[in-house]
């Protein structure tokens, strides 16, 4: 992405007259919102450009092209606008932009989308330009009104002033006039040394509503007479409905209808409980003829068999075969198996469909690819896209789950809406069971690692084979399978990385930090083992192999300093370290671990150093490091979705697909490396180092390397 052009186009600054405001809706405000008036107030907002609106009360509302799922784009993008407008932070508001692949494209992808830790990285110039443009237009409007030269007008903390005449105004009074000004061809952007807001800890814009219960998520959108629908899904991937008996389900008070849909059998009811109760009483016979019937264990065995076959070459530097064949070379080997992982966001997948009186349709959902979801919904419903409005809602987490090419979730939801053919609004929702058993997992992977150590104790060869599903559905090399391994940062003269794409009926998907979820673990645990074989300290040894990698060594050194690496550790505890670059952000973490009474790792503290270029909001960056650490640690310690004998999913809910809980969360200290490099993302990069850092500490503490995840299973067996 570093070499991609994030420049903005003139087209994106055509003032968005008539743009619908996609906002978080309070249920009672739904009717008002459908006509484009924001919840919680009746005042009109004046669009200054595609990304900025101004209210009569001086508020500045940014239209976030990125989904707010907890990672902070509302706050981050508003900071960029406020900085260039010289607004006061208390003026700032944020709403989701409408679904539009042209106006609101992620400049890293070319379509509207949130993912890959790109929200700030792709928006940095574009959204600052939106703010600078709005500022210039406000000044032009004031100059016209006050009949003074624009060059004499200043803006500070949201106040427009002309000091010579003593005139002063807020933004609201000039909103209409500003909107009619010609946008400057090239608005001047501030130099970093002029920043007032960027780099400071501004409170998040969405915090208040998430504390008093007024934040509205998709599940909270419920106009009068809303039907609730849940679908009975098969418990084998690839199974289809053979027949079903809905006699008992239809007897449930509140159940309105039962219909077969492509993904299963849908139960429609007047309320959520009736829908779920009705579904529980369905008797469905499934056709397993095309289903995945292998267990996870059998799949893993198949993966391991692939190690010896010729794979797709991702990296081939030096001559690996020679490195291993040299006389006196010691070979170190490891095989590591990674399980399927569900994303399990707190809010399971859901969508609400509301038909307007003119026949057009409003869809409410938390979408990482909103325009794609709209396209798919329109196609399923046989409607023109122009007749469908996709209103992106705050979403209760996603971690990648709400970004699917081809929008299979929206396909199901729209099919369920189409099947009933009702004029009533409809909410389709997944229960937690649907979520855990619903596939689109972080795929299973198997890694085979071989390292060569020569007579002088130097690491001279690295041979890594990766077997697993291609998330991108590729036949040839899928970068998401090998990222983090194919670009191994360590200076080892002979490196070979190969991959094997495997086909399964279990649908794969990216999961927070994508390929780095497994490559980071494999690389960082194995390099740690090689270093200990040659008697090198994990920090010193890595530094020696990272010559010419200043951002890796910068975070590595800083994390080691923060933790006072090398100091005496309390008895019964050990330290581990890992450093991973992902999404152009560099993160090193040191962990301190002991063995808890159940025999699994207890992580006491994490020291984390992050280099994400220029820090826009340190508070958000630290929150994302803390969150990435917790999310990753929970998965590494506890989580696997397992296919049992016959291919049926074993887990179903949070009792057997465990989440980390507060008593298991370590203390986390985060430091941000000061940098003037372009800002990069933070949603994902906090995650990859935590697993290997814990595994490295565990090996140091117990002598046992972690070869299979989650760790709780190794300890149990």
């Amino acid at each position, binding site marked *: 992405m570093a070499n991609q052009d994030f420049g903005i186009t003139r087209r994106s600054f055509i003032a968005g007259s008539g743009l619908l405001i996609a906002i978080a809706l309070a249920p*009672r405000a739904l009717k008002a919102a459908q006509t484009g008036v924001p919840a919680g107030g009746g005042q009109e907002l004046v669009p200054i450009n595609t990304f900025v609106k101004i209210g009569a009360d001086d508020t500045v509302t940014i239209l976030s092209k990125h989904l707010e799922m907890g990672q902070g784009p509302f706050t981050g993008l508003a900071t960029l606008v406020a900085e260039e407008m010289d607004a006061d932070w208390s003026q700032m508001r944020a709403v989701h932009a409408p679904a539009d692949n042209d106006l609101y494209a992620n400049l890293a992808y070319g379509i509207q989308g949130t993912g890959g830790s790109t929200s700030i990285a792709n928006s940095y110039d574009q959204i600052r330009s939106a703010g600078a443009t709005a500022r210039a237009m406000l000044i032009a409007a004031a100059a016209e009104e006050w009949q003074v030269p624009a060059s004499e007008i200043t803006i500070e903390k949201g106040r427009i002033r002309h000091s010579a005449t003593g005139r002063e105004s807020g933004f609201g009074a000039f909103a209409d006039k500003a909107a009619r000004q010609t946008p400057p061809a090239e608005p001047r952007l501030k130099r970093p040394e002029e920043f007032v807001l960027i780099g400071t800890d501004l409170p998040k814009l969405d*915090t208040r509503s998430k504390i008093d219960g007024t934040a509205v998520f998709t599940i909270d959108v419920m106009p009068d007479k809303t039907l609730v629908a849940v679908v009975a899904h098969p418990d084998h991937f690839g199974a289809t409905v053979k027949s079903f008996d809905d006699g008992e389900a239809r007897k449930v008070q509140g159940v309105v209808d039962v219909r077969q849909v492509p993904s299963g059998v849908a139960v429609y009811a007047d309320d959520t409980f009736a829908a779920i109760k009705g579904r529980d009483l369905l008797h469905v016979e499934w056709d397993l003829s095309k289903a995945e019937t292998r267990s996870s264990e059998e799949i893993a065995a198949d993966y391991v068999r692939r190690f010896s076959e010729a794979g797709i070459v991702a990296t081939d530097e030096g001559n690996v075969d020679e490195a291993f064949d040299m006389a006196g070379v010691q070979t170190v080997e490891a095989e590591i198996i990674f399980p399927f992982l569900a994303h399990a966001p707190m809010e399971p997948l859901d969508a609400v469909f509301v038909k307007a009186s003119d026949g057009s349709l409003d869809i409410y959902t938390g979408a990482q690819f909103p325009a794609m979801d709209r396209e798919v919904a329109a196609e399923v419903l046989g409607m023109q896209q122009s007749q469908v409005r996709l209103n992106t809602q705050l979403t209760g987490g996603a971690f990648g789950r709400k970004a699917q090419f081809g929008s299979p979730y929206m396909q199901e939801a729209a099919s369920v809406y189409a099947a009933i053919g009702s004029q009533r609004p409809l909410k389709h929702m997944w229960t937690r069971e649907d979520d855990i058993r619903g596939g689109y997992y972080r795929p299973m992977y198997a890694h085979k690692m071989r390292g060569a150590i020569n007579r002088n104790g130097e690491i001279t060869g690295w041979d890594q084979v990766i077997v697993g599903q291609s998330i991108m559905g590729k036949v040839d090399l899928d970068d998401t399978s090998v990222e983090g391994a194919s670009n191994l940062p360590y200076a080892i003269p002979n490196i070979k990385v190969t991959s094997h794409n495997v086909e399964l009926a279990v649908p794969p998907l990216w999961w927070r930090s994508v390929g780095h979820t497994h490559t980071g673990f494999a690389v960082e645990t194995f390099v740690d083992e090689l270093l200990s074989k040659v008697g090198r300290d994990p920090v010193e040894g890595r530094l020696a192999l990272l010559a010419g990698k200043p951002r890796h060594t910068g975070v590595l050194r800083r994390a080691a300093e923060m933790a006072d690496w090398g100091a005496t550790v309390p008895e019964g505890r050990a330290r581990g370290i890992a450093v991973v670059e992902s999404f152009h952000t560099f993160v090193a973490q040191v962990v301190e671990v002991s063995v808890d009474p159940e025999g699994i790792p207890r992580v006491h503290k994490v020291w984390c150093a992050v280099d994400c270029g220029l820090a826009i909001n340190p508070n958000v960056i630290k929150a994302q490091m803390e969150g990435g650490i917790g999310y990753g640690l929970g998965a590494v310690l506890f989580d696997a979705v397992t296919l049992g004998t016959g291919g049926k999913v074993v887990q179903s809910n949070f009792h057997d697909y465990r989440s980390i809980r507060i008593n298991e969360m370590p*203390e986390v200290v985060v430091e941000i490396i000061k940098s003037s490099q372009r800002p990069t993302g933070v949603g994902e990069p906090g995650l990859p180092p935590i697993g290997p850092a814990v595994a490295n500490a565990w090996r140091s503490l117990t002598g046992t390397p972690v070869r299979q995840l989650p760790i709780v299973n190794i300890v149990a067996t």
Partner: protein
Amino acid sequence: MVTFVLNGQERTFDGDPDTPLLWVIRDFEKLTGTKYGCGIAQCGACTVHLDGIPHRSCVTPVSMIDGSDVVTIEGVTGLEAEAIKAAWAAIDVPQCGYCQSGQIMSAVALLQMVSKPTDDDIDSAMTGNICRCATYHRIRAAIHAAANSIGG
């Protein structure tokens, strides 16, 4: 017919008596701050106060709450609630925010029972509330800050 008090107002429900309180609050009373997360009392997103005690409303049939006093995030008030909300804002605890109503209801109940909770008290009171964004570090800090803000 079930009669109960919801955020200070008397309410009745005459639908399916098996309906969990969660869905009565959300679907029938249209109070949406209380969230569905698992339906089996594993995640705590649905936590409300039932006669002053934190309860998982997703597994509480409405038939069991006849005559009870129910308080949700929309109605929680008092010294501890204000202190918790202020600390939550100052420390910017929420990320996605979906679990936070439940977290706050558990935290308020903790402070109502233990004015200066230790880390162990916090672990015991809050382990039933999952946060997939893992805001736990800040939840702990906010509970301590709220406790310290009340009566020094």
